[in-house]
């Protein structure tokens, strides 16, 4: 409460200062430009459209004015590939001279532009999960209010071993970095708690039929999947159709069981337990406004991609509040973004560690059918989860980044 009033006061002060000083007013007259780096064409457009809806919902709610500054949103479509991300980032930075970039969607897009945004001193609020961008190769211009790949998976590993008492697990995820990092996080915590990951399967990103992989799963207590995009839909149907679901419970990362995906899923998703940093069920005031806004404008239940951009918008607002008239200084903005601390966002309280990654709640949800509709009911909340989980930060960073081979899977059978 106190914090909120203070920020409001600050905003008022900034506004009155603006009225008092004419030259300052001129500086304020130029809109604050937000560039959205998203995907609107091609196979990744699903998440990309949701990102755009999320930030639009936020800006509509705020009447396109954040902390007294008029906002101009510039949307750029990367097409979902690294070269496109690079070109579009340069369009936003060099041509449109945006103050801050939101996005991009995919890890490989983020990795293609992190050096570039640092060299051009433009702050970026990422939704892509690539671990090292906020770890060993932390970039002072990047913050991530969503989560690293493994952030929720650590919690899932804990929940699976401690609460569900599973001993033997198999993992399955796409054969790319987001998959490796998710599975590594799960495996590490699960095995540190005494469990064993006995099988790790890596189907290619493009896999018409998951049966050859699912058929290899047997003699485990649970399967943890980290699929993304439209793959979870296909995977879960096959998992259920092949009768494995009735025998072996399915666990999921956030992209595999995102709330926005529920409308594409059927009975095969009932009972799946997932770990996510956002739940559309969350009972915060801003989440209610957000879910309502999304329902009204687009008729959809929002998921992580939309929520991530809504929270990113809140971070921008808070940073402008901190800086007042100096918000056009991009370096100062990057520093201010790191200092942002929010009590009310759709995902709960948000603050950042020194590497720019969020410390926030992680929800364990169970998919249920209520009134004929699928919902992810929250069954446990892990508060204030850091990207390092409960591990020592130094030791964590001293290890190699999570990958297909790290931590080594010693219990494979």
């Amino acid at each position, binding site marked *: 409460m106190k914090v909120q009033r203070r920020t409001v006061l600050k905003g008022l002060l900034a506004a009155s200062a603006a009225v008092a000083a004419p030259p300052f007013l001129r500086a304020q007259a130029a809109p604050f430009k937000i560039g959205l780096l998203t995907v609107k*064409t091609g196979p990744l457009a699903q998440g990309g459209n949701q990102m755009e809806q999320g930030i639009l919902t936020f800006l509509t709610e705020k009447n396109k004015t954040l902390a007294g500054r008029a906002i101009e949103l510039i949307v750029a479509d990367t097409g979902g590939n*690294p*070269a496109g991300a690079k070109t579009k980032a340069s369009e936003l930075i*060099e041509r449109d001279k945006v103050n801050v970039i939101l996005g991009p969607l995919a890890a490989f897009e983020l*990795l293609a532009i992190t*050096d570039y945004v640092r060299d051009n001193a433009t702050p970026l609020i990422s939704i892509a999960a690539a671990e090292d961008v906020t770890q060993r190769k932390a970039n002072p211009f990047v913050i991530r209010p969503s989560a690293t790949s493994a952030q929720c998976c650590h919690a899932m590993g804990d929940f699976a071993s401690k609460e569900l008492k599973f001993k033997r697990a198999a993992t399955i995820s796409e054969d790319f*970095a987001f998959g490796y990092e998710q599975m590594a996080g799960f495996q590490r915590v699960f095995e540190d708690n005494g469990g064993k990951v006995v099988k790790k399967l890596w189907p290619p990103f493009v896999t018409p039929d998951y049966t050859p992989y699912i058929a290899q799963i047997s003699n485990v207590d649970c399967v943890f999947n980290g699929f993304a995009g439209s793959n979870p839909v296909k995977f879960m149907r096959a998992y259920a159709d092949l009768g494995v679901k009735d025998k072996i419970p399915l666990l999921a990362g956030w992209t595999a069981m995102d709330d926005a995906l529920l409308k594409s899923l059927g009975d095969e998703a009932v009972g799946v337990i997932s770990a996510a940093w956002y739940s559309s069920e969350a009972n915060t005031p801003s989440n209610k406004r957000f879910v309502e806004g999304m329902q009204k404008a687009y008729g959809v239940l929002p998921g992580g991609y939309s929520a991530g951009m809504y929270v990113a918008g809140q971070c921008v607002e808070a940073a402008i509040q901190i800086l007042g008239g100096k918000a056009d200084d991009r370096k100062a903005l990057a520093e201010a973004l790191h200092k942002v601390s929010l009590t009310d966002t759709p995902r709960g309280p948000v603050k950042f560690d020194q590497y720019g990654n969020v410390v926030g709640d992680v929800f364990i949800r169970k998919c249920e059918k209520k009134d004929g509709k699928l919902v992810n009911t929250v069954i446990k909340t892990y508060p204030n989860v850091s990207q390092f989980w409960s591990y020592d930060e130094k030791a964590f960073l001293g290890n190699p980044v999570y990958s297909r081979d790290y931590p080594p899977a010693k219990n494979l059978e």
Partner: protein
Amino acid sequence: MSARGPRFFAIGVAIAILLTLPLWIANSYYVNIASQILLWAVAALALNVLVGYGGLVSLGHAALFGAAGYTAALLLKAGHGHLVADLAAIGFTLFVSAIFAILSLRSTGIAFLMITLALGQILWGIAYRWVSLTQGDNGVNVTTRPRFFGISLATADAFYYAVLIVFALAVISMAIFVRSPFGASLRGTRDQARRMNALGYNVWLIRFLAFLFSGFWTGIAGLLFVYYNQFISPQVMALQTSAEILLMVISGGTATLLGPIAGAAIVVVMKNVASAYIERWNLVLGVIFVLIISFMPDGLIPGTARIWRSGWQTLRARAARGVRVS
């Protein structure tokens, strides 16, 4: 007739525009777009050697493009200098081109297209899966651009001029190639393979050398790409890239010098510039291709030239009639 006059004039204007481009487009973003057009034009010119003059439609050139890019990126990452990395990249690309050629040149036509497609997909698969070497999907970053006679290519303008020089060399080498006996014999293998054989030409060898020539310039374009983006990942080797380069060649006009350049400009501008204004740019790009093919089946440049000529002739005919009447 002095048909050469206007042509030399046009070439002169084009050179003047290209040389002064960064001066009048002050924004580095647009200079970068120009660099991209030129580097993709090099790739399209390279593919045109096979498609246009050899009648061999390859859908695997993205793999050659990527092979050069990856070799350079990985060697640079391992600490080697630019010269070593670039030479090795070209060497490796030629090696891969030779393998592609040996396997694919057993056939022509659609079978050639399919086999190059399959080979390209295999290389893409390797780049994707051999994570310990290529870092898979994460790609490889290239931290520095080379210096060119002591001039840093870090800025957009400097890099543009470097690309322009390479582009000019590519265009000149293509022009020489087209006029050379080698170019003529390649066209011969395209139009009359059996007769060429009967005349004692080694059709296979001619095609093989053409493949290497094409691979060489594709590799150069791949190098430019990796230096431009300072990043490479498997996406660039995907079938879609091969298809895009092929679309540039066909839409601009095969077996012409200007066609692939115009095609590259269309695709790059649609993808990168028009996409900022038109949300459904993919659709528009598709429509452009369909329109080009409906009205100018031989491509934009030959089609425009034809319309231009026929327009000119109608005008002249009219003028001539006018004279007669008076």
